[in-house]
């Protein structure tokens, strides 16, 4: 058995296809980015090596880069402080909803499986100044004064994006917390009931604290997905108006393909990767709290 399992040729054959695919499509491109990121390449023709100039420019002078990061932070905050509490509450409700539990669970997740192209266009239509659902709603309840070109106004556009992202990701957060609740042994709540705890104290004192490992997972996922947010923005506003809804992914795309600053765009790519890696590692460390076995 051991001889078969340490057959070098077999191992190489099993690993090689996947590893090559991964290396060629993900690792090598990153090295290419690092290379081009230190040049002033404009997409065609010759280019010069300019060392770390791009990075210096991005970190110290590029306002849009920091706006993009700020937007990611805002989106993360909204997700963690608005979407997650709702998700936890609904996950708790779900466990008490009896035979409809599966129906609800399925419905909540449906937006998450739909193409972002569809959801982005759909919500663009909802926010549309002329035939949009939102303005019709305001008309209907007598608040015509609030009617608005929602995506055209820098003050409201970012909130529109946040609502769409939270709407689409809600089922996902709910599913995580729901499965977290399933992992909590039922004898704990039974014991608490016998000791005279009502539902409210049961949840605030016992269940929700026991949910904290799942909260940690869900928060890390939320932070990284918010940082990586691109498609919804690309399709709804393309970062506009006036970069008020810019996110890193979209910004590097725009820099390279619309402004033909390939060197600069690649430098943003590299910083983007570094931010994601560092944040994930730091969050894993910071949020790691030993809550004990149950």
């Amino acid at each position, binding site marked *: 058995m051991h001889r*078969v399992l340490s057959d070098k040729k077999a191992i190489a054959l099993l690993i090689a*296809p996947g590893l090559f695919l991964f290396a060629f*499509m993900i690792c090598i491109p*990153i090295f290419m980015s690092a290379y081009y990121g230190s040049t002033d390449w404009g997409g065609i023709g010759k280019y010069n090596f300019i060392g770390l100039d791009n990075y210096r420019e991005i970190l110290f002078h590029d306002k849009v880069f920091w706006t993009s990061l700020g937007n990611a932070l805002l989106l993360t905050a909204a997700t963690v402080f608005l979407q997650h509490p709702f998700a936890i509450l609904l996950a708790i409700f779900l466990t008490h909803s009896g035979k409809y*539990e599966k129906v609800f669970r*399925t419905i909540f997740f449906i937006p998450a499986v739909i193409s972002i192209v569809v959801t982005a266009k759909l919500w663009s239509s909802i926010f549309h100044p002329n035939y949009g659902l939102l303005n019709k*709603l305001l008309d209907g309840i007598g608040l015509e004064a609030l009617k608005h070109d929602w995506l055209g106004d820098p003050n409201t556009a970012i909130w529109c994006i946040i609502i769409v992202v939270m709407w689409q990701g809600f089922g996902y957060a709910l599913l995580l917390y729901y499965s977290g609740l399933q992992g909590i042994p039922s004898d704990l709540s039974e014991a608490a009931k016998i000791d005279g705890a009502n539902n409210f104290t049961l949840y605030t004192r016992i269940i929700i604290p026991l949910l904290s490992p799942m909260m940690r997972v869900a928060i890390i996922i939320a932070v990284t997905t918010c940082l*990586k947010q691109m498609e919804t923005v690309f399709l709804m506003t393309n970062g506009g108006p006036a970069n008020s809804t810019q996110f890193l992914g979209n910004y590097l795309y725009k820099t390279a*393909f619309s402004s033909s600053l*390939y060197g600069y765009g690649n430098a943003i790519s590299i910083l983007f990767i570094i931010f994601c890696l560092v944040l994930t590692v730091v969050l894993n460390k910071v949020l790691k709290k030993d809550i004990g076995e149950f």
Partner: protein
Amino acid sequence: MTNSLSPAAPLPSTKPHKEERRKVSGGKILMMAFLILIALFQLFPLIWLVDYSLLKSGEFFGSSFLKWPSPPEWQNYVNAFTYGRVPRYFANSLIITVITVMLSALVSLMMGYAFTRMKWKLSGVVLSLIMMGMIIPIHATLLPNFILFNKLGMLNNMYTLILPYSAIVIPMSVLIMTGFLETIPRAIEESAVIDGASIYGVIFKIIFPITKPALATVCVLNFISTWNEFIMANTFLTSEDLKTIPFSIMKFAGEYSSNYGAQFAVMTIIAIPTILIYLLFTEQMTKGITAGAVKG
């Protein structure tokens, strides 16, 4: 919680809190009302989408939210098919998605086996490298991959999408496969080897049938993400003939941009396949997502 993908542990369908109370209380009614309200919020945009896809474009500017289509404007769907080039793009998407799903399932089965069963020094290092792929934003690979494909003259091919699509789903797929393989006892493989089976015989004749549930999860997740992928297709394809289904909606940007009914019809057509797949394989997806999240 860590082995939520194991064959013996059926996921969330067991409800520990369920048997507690039977009486219908005011709190319960309030709770159900709240659940229904949120469910409506999640579904209403989609209901609106389907409803308006059956209206005439002129009716979009009426004052009602929902309008009973009388008669339903099926012409929207006909227009969607012709202006949006739906049959062509649908076929492209199907080919690309099916090849990607099969390729990534095969690769993740092979890698999963090598990572969990085979003995080699670099196993841990290579696995962590692959797992880093879950953190790296794929958008950061768009630019260098575009340059790479451009240099190699590979832009505008189906495999220009199949290769990166298969690559980006590897980390998650391998994670699910290794998690599942860890839970399978090794005795069967050992007796097969004693009976003279080769390593490939073991993987494809013994392990493959046992891992079918995990492979199904991997395939469903990868089908949905590949079918919905847009930004790479937007970057690496320029040829009209190769575009995938999300681009049907883009065809309405210019000359047909005021044909709202047909646009809503196109969006409905794009959304239906993934919703169907999800409804058919809800449990497999749920398992994959929670297992991936907890371990990742």
